[in-house]
């Protein structure tokens, strides 16, 4: 099975708005990541741009519509579309989410939460196996940002992810912003979550911004918005992870309220600085 192998550098999500700036002022970006579903048209500018990006940079293909956490079977047509994108662009990595987004024939367009039980563990492991067999490569599974819990859950999220990785040999995508959002939303300690996270399986890290709101009891309710800069506590958690793991491919996700290219580059440079620091021998 082909393993995910993104360079251990800072990457950014590719936005068509930035294509001209990227072409005119090339920067040493470690890799670009795209949402697979945006490149499932037949042709036109999206494929022309992605072809150019692919020629010059490492590429991460990130799915947002496979619904791996669904009780129902995976959409075979969608798997075929993913396979043909992987064949065409040969990305260094393919990743998806521990979440579901389709029910019956309806696509709900959000990463919805699932209970963590023996039943859901079995189902998700089957789906991850099916994805890896179809694509002929290892996939990375991302920890979700969640806003509520299920009374029926019997397994912690970190144990759940560790067990999926063990059973399927998939890698994990650690979204540090999601860790902070979920931990805050469930009254838990993000550092303790990271201590329990199976870091040895992590092939990529995501960083992004969130919004701060409250629930009806006045408790903080953070929303994973991807529309602003990475928050300070998330930077601190990220540095603590990199100090433990050494450099890992790390992506700045900024999908809404998209900034000018230099702003995104600055955010990526801040990530690269942390990665480069971890590269130096500790004694130096």
């Amino acid at each position: 099975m082909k393993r995910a192998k993104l360079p251990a550098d800072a990457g950014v999500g590719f936005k068509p708005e930035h294509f001209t700036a990227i072409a005119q002022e090339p920067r040493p970006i470690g890799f670009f990541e795209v949402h697979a579903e945006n490149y499932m048209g037949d042709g036109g500018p999206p494929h022309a741009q992605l072809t150019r990006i692919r020629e010059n940079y490492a590429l991460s293909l990130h799915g947002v519509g496979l619904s791996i956490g669904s009780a129902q079977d995976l959409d075979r047509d969608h798997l075929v579309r993913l396979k043909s994108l992987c064949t065409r662009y040969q990305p260094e990595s393919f990743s998806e989410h521990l979440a579901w987004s389709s029910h019956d024939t309806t696509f709900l367009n959000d990463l919805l939460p699932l209970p963590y039980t023996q039943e859901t563990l079995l189902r998700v492991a089957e789906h991850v196996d099916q994805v890896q067999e179809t694509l002929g490569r290892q996939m990375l599974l991302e920890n979700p940002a969640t806003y509520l819990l299920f009374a029926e859950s019997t397994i912690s999220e970190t144990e759940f992810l560790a067990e999926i990785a063990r059973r399927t040999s998939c890698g994990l995508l650690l979204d540090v912003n999601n860790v902070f959002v979920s931990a805050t939303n469930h009254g838990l300690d993000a550092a303790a979550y990271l201590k329990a996270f199976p870091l040895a399986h992590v092939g990529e890290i995501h960083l992004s911004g969130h919004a701060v709101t409250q629930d009806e009891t006045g408790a903080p309710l953070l929303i994973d918005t991807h529309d602003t800069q990475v928050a300070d506590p998330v930077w601190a958690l990220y540095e603590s992870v990199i100090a433990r793991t050494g450099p890992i491919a790390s992506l700045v996700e900024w999908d809404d309220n998209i900034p000018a290219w230099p702003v995104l580059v600055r955010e990526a440079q801040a990530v690269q600085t942390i990665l480069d620091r971890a590269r130096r021998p500790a004694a130096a």
Partner: protein
Amino acid sequence: MMSITQSRFAEALLDRTRPVPAEVTSWTSSEPVRRYGVYRNNVASGLARALAARFPVTEKIVGEEFFTAMARDFVLTHPPTSPVLLHYGADFTGFVADFVPAASLPYLPDIVRLEDAQIRAYHARDIAPIAPDVLMRITSERMSGLSFRFHPAASIVRSAFPIVTIWSMNAGLLPLAPIEDWRAEDALVTRPELSVVTRQISPGSAILLLALMRDATLGEAFDEALQADPDFDLGRNLAELMRSGALVDIVAEPSLEA
């Protein structure tokens, strides 16, 4: 169990009259209305934003607030059936036509139709248009039997309203101004290379092209165009068509091949 949980969770996302699913909880409350509401809002606003990205001129005409309200109504009653949203909203035209608050803008559904044609052209298969001078190499006696193969990006949008002018003004291609000459306009949408082009064509030209797209021969299509416009200029129209990038091939009738 997993399937029942997801059914309840999914149904209440789209139907806001349903209560928060009994299976969900939180550390602060066993009935986390606002927390479940984050998912409800993500679904409706995410899909409404996807529609706004597909129909930017429609949004500009009615304003963001009106568009969002209309789009949220649409997405909850017509949620997508595919995780690929590039073509989501093909039935938005019909919804807008029946949307009572938009009734004072009778041309709006045709603008939606035009933007749908444009986005289809944007994502259409890449294929090189025919060289503009191909027609000059065909002898005139064979002309009437020719049939035409269109680029997958090419389509015609006919309207009883000046949709090309309205669209161009709101897309920033023409200055915004009162439209003195309020009349029917037809559009040819193409994407000869990577840029989508929308150009106004005459009613006769629209009839000719629609007939050719139905696989009529040039002779048959010309007859249809002449019925609508006795002064229809075939030579000029063919020259424009050859330059438009809307064609990928011209085929002679088999009987004339020999």
